[in-house]
């Protein structure tokens, strides 16, 4: 049967990673637009919150110790920081030059990465943020209000229908719906089968296709998932390179270079520019940057 703990663990082993149990640390990201870093760190320290700088992130910190929820401090409620898992803080940082750009966040809710994009853009340009579920857009609106975001428009829209907006984008974040990974879901191995993975991979290719159509020449797509399955990651990116007039750009970030030989398939060489993060101090993650080639 193509499911279950043993099945998936043996796949990870084939990819060169030995399974280990992980315990994730909660992480925060300072909203640099709203807070001066040194002063905020001092304020949190005075509340008894012990932080550790995340070495591969500019504004990210792990929570080492806190007597109360970091989601209930006045600093959080005033939008001085956001709670965002460490690996999830990576994708938005992979774009080159975001200020004054028109950016699409195609699967945006609950909005952690939208807020991060706005912070990196210093509220300039415009972010168009979409989500298919209306109630999730309410959560996104709350985040935007809490963090004083002023450059974002949200729509209740399926990412596959983005062309309806009749807008071309300089940058597109595709943090696509995915199968997730065991590090953030203790029942993951019980719940997931290879059929789920393949269904998600198909949806992701549909989203990639639509996004590539509304991307300007020389524009960038950052594609990310929190799935460990190659069908949703390396295989999809190879498919995009072959079909969507995009190329994989080199990125400098945490994680290991993706493999180009997986489960007996030999992939296009540029796939090695993608980054794969195995669960450990962060959750499992995959990210890469695609650039649209001039027609």
């Amino acid at each position: 049967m193509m499911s279950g703990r043993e099945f998936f663990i043996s796949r990870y082993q084939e990819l060169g990673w030995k399974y280990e149990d992980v315990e994730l640390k909660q992480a925060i990201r300072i909203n640099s637009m709203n807070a001066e870093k040194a002063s905020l760190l001092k304020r949190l320290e005075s509340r008894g919150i012990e932080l550790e700088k995340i070495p591969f992130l500019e504004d990210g910190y792990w929570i080492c110790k806190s007597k109360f929820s970091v989601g209930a401090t006045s600093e959080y409620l005033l939008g001085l920081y956001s709670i965002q898992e460490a690996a999830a803080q990576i994708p938005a940082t992979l774009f080159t030059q975001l200020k004054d750009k028109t950016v699409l966040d195609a699967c945006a809710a609950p909005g952690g990465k939208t807020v991060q994009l706005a912070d990196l853009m210093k509220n300039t340009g415009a972010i168009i943020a979409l989500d298919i579920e209306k109630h999730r857009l309410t959560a996104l609106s709350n985040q935007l209000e809490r963090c004083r975001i002023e450059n974002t428009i949200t729509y209740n829209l399926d990412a596959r229908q983005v062309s309806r907006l009749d807008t071309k984008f300089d940058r597109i974040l595709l943090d696509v719906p995915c199968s997730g990974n065991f590090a953030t879901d203790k029942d993951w191995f019980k719940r997931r089968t290879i059929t789920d993975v393949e269904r998600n991979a198909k949806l992701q290719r549909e989203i990639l296709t639509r996004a590539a159509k509304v991307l300007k020449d020389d524009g960038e797509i950052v594609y990310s998932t929190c799935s460990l399955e190659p069908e949703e990651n390396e295989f999809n990116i190879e498919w995009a390179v072959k079909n969507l007039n995009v190329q994989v750009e080199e990125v400098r970030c945490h994680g290991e270079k993706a493999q180009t030989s997986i489960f007996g398939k030999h992939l296009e060489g540029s796939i090695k520019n993608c980054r794969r993060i195995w669960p450990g101090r962060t959750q499992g993650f995959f990210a890469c940057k695609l650039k649209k080639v001039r027609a």
Partner: protein
Amino acid sequence: MKPITDFARQLNSKISLDEDLTVKKKNRYFLLNKTLKRLASKDFFHAGMYLGKEKDGVFFPSFNLLAMIADKRANKVVVDEKTEWLFICGRDVFKRGIIRVIGSVKKGSYTLILNSYSECLGFGKALSDLHELKEGAVVKNILDVGDFLRRERSSFKTHS
């Protein structure tokens, strides 16, 4: 955008918004910039800065609007750290927790509540003249940033 300017007046403040860039969407108000105005189609869910909403003839300000007003001349009460926490938890402000009163906060008028970093925590209604030496609860909590947590909880209940 009368409800917004009327609300600011209740805080003894004045606010002027560019009418062309202020958009009413059903009962909610948003302030856009020129780029967003050009890009936004009429079926948006949220755009630019959310300013507040009207319900049954009453205007409910957003925290963005309160922060905008806090940058201007307005009624303000600066509170100590303990009172900051209690206020965020929905409690009224007691006289002993007040560090400073800015403006002429008379009984019945609205005032912003700020922490010692001048960050706006919400607003309330004066229960007495704040320059009088009266003990006890002096500002009734109307809205505080703890509302973000209450919204999360109610959304979780609705969708779980």
